[in-house]
């Protein structure tokens, strides 16, 4: 959700506050492979990675063709291995499916920073950095559960609109959501999946609203498709419930600020891509993280999922990505 005023590029989440670590060191070529940027969040990932890399004079950034076909992504990573890059940052379409080729890179002595979707085999990556999908579901579940409990709703109608159902991250999110709701004695009334696109969100929500005449709460996994979900809610003229989003797009934050059906969103920030580039550089240069005692970068870093509401939205707005 962007319009030019905001595209003034203030929100590329590239930060350089790494103490001495940011001083130019040995030259590093970082290969980067991610799914096709047909989605705001992934697009932000790609942009953040590139912007972060540009901050360093000692980094040569080599992105390869993003694709949603696993077979092609394998090929892309193979070509980076063949070019003997210094480090690889990989956001796989599917961690399990890309595992073998990541392992091949590691075996060839190229450290792999695994971004977001995790490889099952720990030998396939040097460091994993990613969001907490389960935690995201938990955060959304707690927000909804607590609020409904406080209102004293007995048997609430809670809906869930997932993203792409075949992704493990979707299943993790749903599991966290269900687990958190359970602590309040609630459960999900109905669940449908969309495609992470505005239009699919609109279609699924349009139909779902027909199926449930009275809703208490709705969790939508993804703020990109959330634009379509919100439009469908408006078209159906419904406002008896509240909605929680996911990921933390700038647009969702503005909606929260304006007050409306969307009351909160749980973050899953694409800033992780910037971090991944930083980590890859450090690993390749053999440095550790400035704020940690250890001389090496940790093996795994999980970002916390934060809950953004009207109360703290101003603080998060600058970090929101434009979907």
């Amino acid at each position, binding site marked *: 959700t962007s319009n030019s005023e905001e595209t003034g590029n203030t929100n590329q989440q590239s930060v350089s506050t790494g103490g001495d670590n940011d001083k130019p060191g040995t030259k590093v070529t970082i290969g980067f492979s991610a799914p096709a940027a*047909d989605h705001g969040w992934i697009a932000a990932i790609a942009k953040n990675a590139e912007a972060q890399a540009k901050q360093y004079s000692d980094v040569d950034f080599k992105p390869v063709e993003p694709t949603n076909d696993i077979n092609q992504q394998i090929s892309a990573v193979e070509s980076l291995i063949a070019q003997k890059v210094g480090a690889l940052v990989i956001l796989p379409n599917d961690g399990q499916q890309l595992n073998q080729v990541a392992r091949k890179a590691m075996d060839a002595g190229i450290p792999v920073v695994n971004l977001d979707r995790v490889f099952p085999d720990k030998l396939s990556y040097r460091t994993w950095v990613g969001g907490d999908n389960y935690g995201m579901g938990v955060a959304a579940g707690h927000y909804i559960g607590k609020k409904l409990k406080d209102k004293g709703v007995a048997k609430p109608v809670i809906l869930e609109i997932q993203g792409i159902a075949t992704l493990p991250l979707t299943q993790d999110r749903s599991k966290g959501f269900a687990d958190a709701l359970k602590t309040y004695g609630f459960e999900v009334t109905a669940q*449908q999946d969309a495609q992470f696109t505005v*239009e699919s969100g609109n279609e699924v929500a349009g139909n779902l609203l027909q199926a449930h005449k009275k809703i208490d709460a709705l969790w939508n996994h993804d703020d990109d498709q959330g634009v379509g979900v919100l439009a469908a809610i408006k*078209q159906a*003229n419904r406002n008896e419930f509240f909605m929680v989003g996911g990921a933390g797009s700038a647009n969702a934050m503005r909606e929260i600020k304006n007050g409306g059906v969307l009351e909160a969103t749980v973050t899953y920030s694409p800033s992780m891509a910037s971090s991944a580039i930083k980590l890859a550089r450090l690993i390749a240069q053999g440095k550790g993280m400035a704020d940690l005692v250890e001389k090496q970068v940790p093996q795994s870093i999980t970002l916390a999922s934060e809950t953004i509401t009207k109360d703290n939205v101003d603080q998060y707005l600058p970090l929101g990505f434009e979907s």
Partner: protein
Amino acid sequence: MNDTRTLSAEPAGKAPAPASSRSVRGLGGARHLGLVAALVLLAIVGLVTQPDNFATSSNLVSVLALAATIGVITVGMTFVIIGGGIDLSVGAIMALASVWATTVATQSYGPVVMALCAILVGAGAGALNGFLISYGRMVPFIATLAMMVAAGGLAQRMSDRRTQLVRPENDAIMALSTTKVLGLPLLVYIFAAVVAAGWVLLNRTTFGRRTFAVGGNPEAARLAGIDVRRHTMLLYTLSGVCCGIAAILIMARTTTGSSTHGNLYELDAIAAVIIGGTLLTGGRGTIIGSILGLLIFTVITNLFILNGLNTSDQLIAKGLIIVAAVLLQRRSLRSSS
């Protein structure tokens, strides 16, 4: 004369409509019975499984509103397929038109210009398809595939892969989806108008007759003095215009322009057209059939979601229903002969 009966023989297989039903044939009489039966069956399933939700006016409105976008595209697709072609680029053209119409520059001129822009972009892309096919003599499948890929890329480039919101001052666009007349949102009327215009164009004008000719037997059309190339250009342009109109509708519904709009619409539209009885080889088909085919798809999705079926089961059921609908339709055709 003694040869009277011999030359007007009606072959059994092809099922000529009896004289009495001829008058309604154009409007989708006997030949669409199977589709109507499939729809009725689905409606019965809906009534039984969701007595409170299915037959409500708000649900029906919602089904129509959901059908509207692809519906408009399906009308254009029907023309292209009857004319012997195929258009894989409809989804991408719609996306491109929606993005172009929601750029800051376009939006600054207000909603009317946005709508015009969408239609012009659609027409332009369609005309380019038509040009490649008729004058460049490319196979329609490949030419429109290339357009699908390129238009999708252009849409991404133009939008910088972001979802572009329709700005509040242009909410006349959104009003198409929120303003209701006689209980129906405006976009349903637009859908209906496009279907009606398509029907008239196909069945009551020389353009329509020639479309059948160009698709059914291009050589015969050429020998009859029809400019087949020009006609082909026009067909794809028409399809492009429909994509432009669909872009307006999708902007109204989602309040955005985005390069992700219209993904896989081509498959849905083509499937609707073919289920509706139009031949992929061209020369035969109806608008009404296509729209019925599309409604079947939309109602299936609606039913699934109303009943809370999960996607995997939805997909399996959808496959079975498609097979059943087609077999049902063939059966009804056979028995009506």
